[in-house]
């Protein structure tokens, strides 16, 4: 990879309707970051509040990065590719970033006292790799652009579930959604 390429800002475009629910992204993410298959320590998590309505939930890199701003110990920062990176040693696991995130995306590591946020794998997101290889294409790597409202993609699992369930199940959706 050229260094100019390596420093390029990127984004993971997501088409939730194409998610098969295979969770290969969780497997790939946790193998990459933890060298174990560990769904709860995956930076990308597939929610299934309604069967058939599976979708990956992970950082959207809001243009204003509210999680970074709110961190009381400056454990979060933004790197050259636009990802939020964590200083594990500094993080106190207070969860303020979770509350600041409009999609409530970050979650604490199940065994350590620090938060898990997608770091875009140094520019080669493993989740995108497996999703593309398998032909589902729910996740695609794209260039990050200026003047785009990325924050609007940050939605809670409940909101995404409702939106997707309506697409799939139409007027039947309401009676299937846990509320």
């Amino acid at each position: 990879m050229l260094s100019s390429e390596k420093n390029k800002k990127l984004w993971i475009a997501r088409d939730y309707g194409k998610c098969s629910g295979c969770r290969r992204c969780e497997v790939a993410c946790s193998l990459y970051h933890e060298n174990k298959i560990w769904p709860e320590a995956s930076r990308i998590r597939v929610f299934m509040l309604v069967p058939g309505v599976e979708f990956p939930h992970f950082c959207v890199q809001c243009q204003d990065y509210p999680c970074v701003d709110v961190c009381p110990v400056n454990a979060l920062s933004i790197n050259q590719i636009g990802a939020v990176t964590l200083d594990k040693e500094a993080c106190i696991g207070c969860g303020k970033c979770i509350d600041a995130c409009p999609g409530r995306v970050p979650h604490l590591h199940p065994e350590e006292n620090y938060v898990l946020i997608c770091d875009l794998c140094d520019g080669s997101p493993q989740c995108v790799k497996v999703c593309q290889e398998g032909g589902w294409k729910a996740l695609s790597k794209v260039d990050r652009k200026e003047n785009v409202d990325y924050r609007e993609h940050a939605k809670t699992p409940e909101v995404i579930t409702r939106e997707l369930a309506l697409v799939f199940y139409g007027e039947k959706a309401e009676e299937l959604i846990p509320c």
Partner: protein
Amino acid sequence: MLGYAGKILEVDLSAEKVQTTIQREEVLKEFIGGRGLATKILWDRLGEKWETINPIGEENLLLFLTGPLTGYFPGGRICVSGKSPQSNGVIGSTIAGEFPVELKCAGYDGIIVSGKADEPVYLFIADAEIQILSARHIWGKNGKQTVRVLTKEGRELLKQLFLGRGEPKEPAIIYIGPAGENLVRTAAVMGKWTHAAGYGGYGAVMGSKNLKAVVVKGSSALPEVYNVEEVKHLIDDVCKKCYESVDFRRWGTSSAGYNVGAERSAEPIKNWQEEWHDEESFKVEEFEKRLWIKKAWGDFGCPTTCLKMAMVKTGQFKGAIGDNPDYELQAYVGTNLGVFTPEANVYLASLMDDLGLCGIQTGNVLGFAGELYQRRILTNEDLDGLKLEWGNAEAFAELAKKIAHRQGLGDVLAEGTFRAAIKLSKLKGLDVLRFAVHVKAVAIGAHGIRSGKDYPMEMSYACSVQAGDHTSVAYLPLTHSASELTVIFHDSAVYCWFNAFGQPQDLKWKFYKAVTGVELTPKEWYETKALRIIQLQRAMLLLGGPDFRWNPRLHDENPLRFYEPLPSGPWKGKAVDKKRFEELRKKYYEAVGWDENGIPKPEVLKRLGLADVDEVLDRLRRNA
């Protein structure tokens, strides 16, 4: 041992006690997990009094066991077992989903449920936190509503337990529908909305324990493995091979709804009176373009994602949601009932799921009732006015509801095809057993053997230790990929063997070594370990009881229907050749180490270290 969580969760619902136990490494090496380990546990704990154990009584055990490859080999499944209310033997019945992965991540290789709760309960597991909670509010609820309520409650409990850790994902859930609650012998253990451990009737066992559901969340990693780099490579290898199966990934097993009928002439039609159709309306393209709202749907780690989500959007069956349906349900609640329209088929499959019924077993008993109606043995009066004509999906749906709730004739049919046939023969004063298409009270899968163009051999069902189960058939040579002995490895290491199709034969041994660090050779497997599991399953199947016991001379046999010539199609006139069947059965007995009466031989049992089984079987030998 590497690859295992190391503990089994034991839940005594009578005493409301929970404890963990450890399986010895020697036992795990011999019996692996899942079906193999279930067989060992059941023999050790219930073997002595096997014949007296009522499968839907308090003394039966209900087992949910993963295996060492579960979660690693792409496509996670879990094996449900116990004494089967269908065969009175042991059936390893697997179901896909995230449940096994959550369970292993919570620290358990499996759950053994004993006793019976005083009132409906569900089990909630979050790592070391185990709660037995009331299920009064969900008793009677269908699958979709059960999943909805438990997803909500489960997440609320997780929010409290993991306070401040962020949004909890949903826990994984397995459950029973109304059919299991009402002890219907064709009831399945269900997952998501459409997933089922159908063979065996373990939904009824779960219901007999007053256990509505098990809800689990695990927050640890999957257990440590021997060689993680090798595991990563093997996962990639399996996935790459699966990606080559373009048609299978696109259609799942749904293309078989047409192909197995039109091309192989091996599909049940109108209770197996025929096995051939060429209805274009039942081609998979019709399902795809008219009904599929999600074209790739899968479970944990699966590269194939052969499931599809279907929904009927218009017409009289509007609102029905289900999977593809897969081939088995296309056949059993489609062609077998004379239903050839995708909408009606999805509706019926979705109803099976909602009620928690096994689509194969129930589709078979519905077809059986349909034939009795056709022959005017069952009347409108018997059926409370239902016109059970072939193709009348609404009438079959009403009858399915009666079965799930044990109402009217449904109470008889809820016993499954074989037991219902015995009851109806008495009630009607004539032999209707000849219309019952089953082997040892397990309705056979939707793969006929008369044309010889589909996969099983003539003795495939007759000699299987899981009887009519089309996923586990007797086959020669024993080392063939379609042989029950091979399947036992898949179902004991516990993963989806659809993802093992087309893989090199040695891949599974390599995978096992990479995860556990233990070398396992095909020779060891086929000549010792698998053979030992087969003997144990065979022993418990033959001991049977308390209501029925099988005599191999009479019951290692095909359904009578398979000796009737096919009445239509390209192989019109073909039937199972009795002489060839008997030769194959004899060959199979020899290969697998059974005497001429089908009973495991003393020397074989002794060589396998099963002297205690030999002693018990001596009783059967004297009677034979």
